[in-house]
């Protein structure tokens, strides 16, 4: 177990290094520079360049960036003067994370419940209905769901304010939008696995031993059908927590996703690199946690060395 954790940690560090390097150099390959839109005279521009050390050779910049990174310092934003990348992330991440964590919980709960129901009834109409719904859910992208929800519930029915977030309930539309797609995916994963597990000998035996349906399905079958869904939930959690650009744009949420895309357009080297690194970090951590969870849930892995 410990060896596994160490190995994974080492690999993840390697991935981080690759991502840092990649973003650093790709950003500098981009046509244009951070200050091109401002009509500043060359002298000020040169000043700005030297302030952010952009006049130095790239290798030097890279080395400095790495040394700052080792102190968890992501540098200063080039576009929002006076604000560090750490500050921007600290401000916008909680917004994304709040919406994202709600969406995560909703999609997991909904996905597991619908997956189990559709597997139990897979040859009858409720199961088919759920399957059809998930296919539909996988075909309607989130920008369609989001705009549609706003149009119906906020503009026509006036049940929610447009882009105003005062009460917790106001977050409902973005949360629904974010969770529609993952809920459909989780439903399908659980459904496929569950149908397979329900045909296993131990499930048939448990039924013949007189156990009730609830116990057979939830206690005996479900834990064995979960690994695929958990495996998917790792990257999903990272994507949801760090915010989706499109959903944040449609709902005018000041989250991390918005900053990311605008900073690429702005050539805000430090902000792009910072958010990328932050995102990759979250992704690696949540994937890792998901893997550990699957590992712990399977007693055949946990107790391999005993007996």
């Amino acid at each position: 177990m410990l060896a596994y954790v160490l190995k994974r940690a080492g690999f993840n560090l390697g991935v981080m290094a690759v991502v840092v390097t990649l973003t650093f150099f790709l950003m500098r390959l981009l046509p244009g520079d951070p200050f091109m839109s401002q009509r500043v005279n060359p002298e000020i521009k040169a000043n700005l360049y030297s302030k952010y050390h952009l006049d130095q050779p790239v290798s030097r910049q890279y080395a400095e960036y790495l040394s700052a990174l080792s102190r968890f310092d992501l540098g200063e934003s080039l576009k929002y003067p006076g604000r560090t990348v750490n500050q921007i992330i600290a401000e916008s991440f909680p917004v994304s994370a709040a919406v994202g964590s709600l969406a995560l919980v909703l999609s997991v709960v909904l996905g597991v419940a619908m997956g189990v129901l559709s597997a139990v009834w897979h040859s009858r109409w409720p199961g088919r209905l759920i399957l059809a719904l998930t296919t539909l859910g996988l075909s309607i992208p989130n920008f369609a769901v989001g705009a549609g929800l706003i149009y119906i519930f906020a503009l026509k029915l006036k049940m929610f304010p447009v882009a105003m977030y005062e009460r917790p309930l106001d977050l409902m539309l973005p949360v629904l939008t974010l969770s529609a797609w993952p809920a459909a995916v989780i439903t399908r994963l659980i459904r496929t696995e569950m149908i397979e597990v329900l045909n296993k000998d131990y499930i048939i035996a448990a039924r013949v031993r007189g156990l009730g349906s609830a116990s057979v399905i939830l206690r005996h079958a479900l834990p064995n059908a979960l690994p695929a869904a958990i495996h998917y939930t790792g990257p999903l959690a990272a994507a949801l927590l760090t915010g989706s650009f499109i959903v944040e744009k449609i709902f005018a949420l000041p989250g991390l996703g918005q900053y990311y895309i605008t900073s690429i357009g702005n050539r805000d080297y430090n902000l792009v690199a910072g958010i990328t690194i932050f995102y990759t970090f979250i992704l690696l951590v949540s994937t890792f946690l998901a893997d550990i969870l699957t590992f712990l849930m399977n007693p055949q892995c946990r107790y391999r060395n005993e007996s």
Partner: protein
Amino acid sequence: MIKVEGLCLSVNKKKSTFRLVRDVNYSLEQGETLAIVGESGSGKSLITYALLGMLNHLEGLEGTVEAFGQKNILKASSKEIRRLRRNKIGYIPQNPRESLTPTLRIGSQLAEVVAAKTGKSRRSCRLISRNLLQPLGFSEPEKVLQMYPHQLSGGMCQRVAVAMAIASSPAAVVADEPTSSLDLLTKYEIIKVIKSAQEEQRFTLVLVTHDLDLAFKYCNKIAVVYGGRLFEMGTANELYVRPRHPYTRGLVRCFTGAGMANSGLHYIPGEPVSIYTQFTGCRYFNRCQMRLEICEVKEPPCVRTDGRRVACWLYGRDEGK
């Protein structure tokens, strides 16, 4: 007492109907041991599944199974079936390791089954399950209860399954090839464990097997199944000494011949018919050495001759005279 009459099972597949079990009749007194013997794919397991109410959801199921105070198990509601499974009938499955949930500890699974069967709380069932395992040949039951199925050997898993089956002192226990995946030594241990439990609790035992040795040694009644039909049924002794049906004769010769020196290995020529072939006459026709003309066109009825049932025209014709 178990009384099965006219048990039939047909399944529709690819627009044609396949009759998997046809016209099976038998009856058992309380405390008897019946061996259902047949080759793989002969439908012997299906016959016992009917007893457990596992086929009730299928449309092509006909006949009556009268047992445990139920008029017809095949028509019982799922609630009644669950009550039967809890109180009246135990089940020992075919693959011991695959029939225990891999993600739960033995103790928790066993306690759950005991709780379901006895109606007691889970907590008190921990102790009961410990006491259940004790006579089944576990040296350290406490330790076993803490383990997961993959940590136990096949024989140990099967003992746990036996404990689950006999937890509520059932009226009958159905064992579906309980030893087919075990090695030779464990096989006899498991059978002995089941038999001694039977002596103590006096339940009826239905043992599905393709092992004639087990059938003749441990059972007092034997039913020979071929192609979904009951070819012959009688007491173990009678069948051993005077098998009537040509198929049974072949089986017994294979079995007894194997033990004797210089006799060579006896076998029944040909291959068993698949249950999925369409056939009008006797299923055994192709391999039978005593076949008659009628065998090819018409299926023989199941007749009683001197205390047993035989489905063969050799005897059906005699009775017709």
